[in-house]
């Protein structure tokens, strides 16, 4: 298995810093800053990482670092957005986007990548905890669950499914189901990702069952997987 640093080198998100006004040199230093910050945040947490740690691991001076970003919180926010946008953009792949099966496949792909790729779940959990403990530094709309609700198509998909009468219980709102889905996911992965490390020596860890997770969340929907909408 790759080390965290090797995995980060391969991550697509660091190539998605889209801003045409920036020169290639600036983009290159930002990439270096973001890659190193991600590694530090994922391994030590945001609380324990300082701007000094970031500048020295990126091999730049503190002054240069502050030319790019004002604070570690700003860096964490940029990383969080890049990460989730990247996860959402590569989810699902080929297929008819207007099917329930496609929605399940996309969700499974996002969840799988979050849990299986080095460092991602650690970063997300550290970010979520840190942002909650410092609400004055992070807008609520940037928290994991809220960001996904706003930027993924989950809400839209579920609204459409519900409007066609596929919800077994009509009193359940599509927004609430989307929220419970994302809250459950971060809560569950938080719990098991820690346990995964803690009992690693005992050796018989079993990977979580994403199908069961998705079946549970969608058990309120009465379709066999082929409904078009």
């Amino acid at each position, binding site marked *: 298995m790759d080390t965290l640093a090797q995995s980060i080198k391969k991550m697509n998100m660091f190539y998605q810093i889209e801003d045409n006004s920036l020169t290639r040199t600036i983009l290159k230093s930002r990439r270096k800053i973001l890659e190193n910050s991600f590694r530090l945040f994922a391994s030590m947490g945001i609380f324990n990482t300082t701007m000094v740690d970031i500048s020295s691991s990126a091999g730049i001076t503190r002054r240069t670092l502050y030319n790019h970003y004002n604070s570690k919180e700003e860096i964490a926010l940029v990383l969080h957005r890049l990460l989730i946008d990247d996860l959402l953009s590569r989810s699902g792949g080929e297929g008819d986007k207007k099917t329930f099966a496609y929605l399940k496949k996309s969700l499974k792909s996002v969840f799988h990548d979050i849990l299986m790729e080095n460092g991602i779940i650690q970063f997300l959990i550290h970010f979520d905890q840190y942002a909650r403990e410092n609400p004055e530094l992070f807008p609520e709309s940037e928290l994991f669950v809220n960001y996904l609700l706003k930027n993924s198509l989950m809400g839209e998909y579920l609204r459409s499914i519900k409007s066609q009468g596929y919800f077994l*219980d009509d009193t359940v709102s599509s927004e609430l189901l989307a929220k419970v889905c994302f809250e459950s996911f971060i809560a569950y992965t938080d719990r098991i990702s820690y346990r995964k*490390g803690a009992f690693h020596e005992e050796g018989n860890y079993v*990977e979580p069952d994403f199908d*069961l997770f998705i*079946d*549970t969340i969608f058990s309120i929907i009465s379709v066999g997987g082929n409904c078009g909408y």
Partner: protein
Amino acid sequence: MDIDILEYGDSRTLNKKRKEILSVSRELFIEFGIEQASMKLIADKARITRRSLYNYYDSKEQIAIDVQILNLKDMNFFETWGCVLISIDLQETLKRIPEIAKKAMGEHKFHYILISKLDSHFNQGYPDSKYPDFLRKEVAAAYPDVYIDYNPLDYRVEWFHANLLLAYIQRLATRNKSASLSYSDVQSEIELLAKLISNTNPTKK
């Protein structure tokens, strides 16, 4: 707080001091997390020297394990969650879930927060087998009639819903910490989650 279950067999004076160490550590862990609470900070807060603290504990990790054992006992964790951890009666727990959620946002808020802090600190493993052994013993004691091979590591399919439920409740305490939610804010979420789990988790013997 009765610390006899930790089985140190201290004299009365030692016992009193150990109690105080554990009680100030608990507060520090909840406020700052285990990473930020140093042995020096704990000694200062307990008004003893660092050298004297090391007579009781070799590391803050050992303190944290003891704090957690008392924490779980104090909130009757195994009476509430023991059955869920070994999945013998999820339906019964689902019926009680509003009550459990209310407690997680009220009187048990810091108990659950402490569980999260401990989990996150020990994500690379525990210093020795004291804590995993304690978990196994308590689950077995709560359900003496059932054969139990409880392994906290195991995420087999049959324990999925139990872990999901516990994880969601545990998270309520942390969400509540920053956003000051009340039960009515999350009631619909909790009810929906219970419904989803109930749909997919048939009653078990």
